[in-house]
């Protein structure tokens, strides 16, 4: 596992997820046009495929690729946090 993003970057990523991912998945991540991103809804999904979904998007769905805004390691950190309960 790559090094965790530093504290400042973590804060940016949390805000990005809550505010910008939140426009489809809901600010509380309970789902909207996109599916819920709560630990209970993600627990049976492999982490690598979730990282790939964030990083490369999902063609045929509205999920866009976020690779111009984060590294793959940062996408991995987001997935890890989503699966264990995302910070406020």
């Amino acid at each position, binding site marked *: 596992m790559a090094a965790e993003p530093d504290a400042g970057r973590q804060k940016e990523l949390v805000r990005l997820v809550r505010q*910008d991912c939140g426009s489809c998945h809901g600010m509380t991540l309970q789902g909207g046009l996109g599916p819920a991103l709560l630990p209970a809804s993600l627990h049976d999904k492999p982490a690598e495929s979730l990282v790939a979904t964030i990083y490369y998007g999902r063609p045929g769905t509205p999920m866009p690729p976020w690779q111009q805004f984060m590294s793959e390691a940062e996408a991995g950190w987001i997935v890890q946090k989503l699966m264990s309960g995302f910070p406020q």
Partner: protein
Amino acid sequence: MRLVLGFLFALLLTACAGPQVRGTGDLGLVIERASGHVTLVDTTSRQPYARIGGLGDLSHASAVYSRDGRYAFVFGRDGGLTKIDMLEARIVNRVIQSGNAIGGSISQDGKIVVVQNYTPGGIKAFDAATLELLSEVPAEYAPGKFSKVVGLADSAGNKFAYALFEGGEIWVSNFSNPKQPTTQRFTAGSQPYDGLVTPDGRYFLAGLFGEDGVAMLDLWQPEKGARKILEKYGRGEEKLPVFKMPHLRGWSVAQGKAYLPAIGRHEVLVVDVATWKEVGRIPVRGQPVFVMARPDGRQVWVNFAFPDNGKMDVIDTLVGKVVHAFEPGKGILHMEFTPRGENVWLSARDDNKVLIYDTATFTRVGEIAADNPSGIFFTTRAARIGF
């Protein structure tokens, strides 16, 4: 001394609590999405006059108004429907009507409030006076399959038009008998993401995400079915990733032309509303989210999806191009014009401010503090079809 102060305080409270004799035509509310509050605002003084909490999850919240402009109905993401008295600045009623809602609308006669839901997918109708549930229409487009509902808009005769994201259809539900609505279904296309009704109430348009184009239903002649307009406006070009779905409500018609956000493109589409053919495109500095006309139609203001959501472009409809481009703040999520358009209010989410601009000079004439502001809704919506 304490007694005197106490008395003065009580006197002050009485003075504030008494009914204020004033109209509501220059009032409005600002959604504070992260904290479950709304701030009530006065567009004449350009100041807030009250703040109300306890509205739940207000991400993507919107509001409509009773026909007298006194009550706001706020639709929260968590399925909360809250009725607010704009004059007494208090919640008069609140119900949790679903698990995951995305907006609502009010009937032509003002008696029915309809909410559109993602989960469980469908719409629900409530008595505007009491918020009592009157009826519901589940969006079951195939046996056992429910769709998220988007683009709900009111139209004449207490009918409501809306689109089904997974179902790929436009539905029109008639609530002339509010307890027993009847529904007509029309094929729309792949993944409608939002909808709108034209200012005259005649056409319902549903923007499509899954294909280039817009589905259009003539509500005066629904028997003719929905047809596609602006088909293949991308002409096979690769679409840019879409980081935020455009919003069609609050769209713009000016000088016989409609201005629509192009999905996945840095363009505003210009459409002749007589023929519904594309007559032009205006390049802008990002993917448009809201494309809204000033009430007189002379200007069209455009905000953008992440990562360009600090920018605003203003199109002059006479010359057909952007005449003013600026960066008013961080995270510009929404805009609302004062009733006759001399000012526009912009929510700058990441600055925790609402910014007020003069639309003739583009100068900032005021700002108010708000916690992560998103939607701004003025009472003038009470008298507009489709708002």
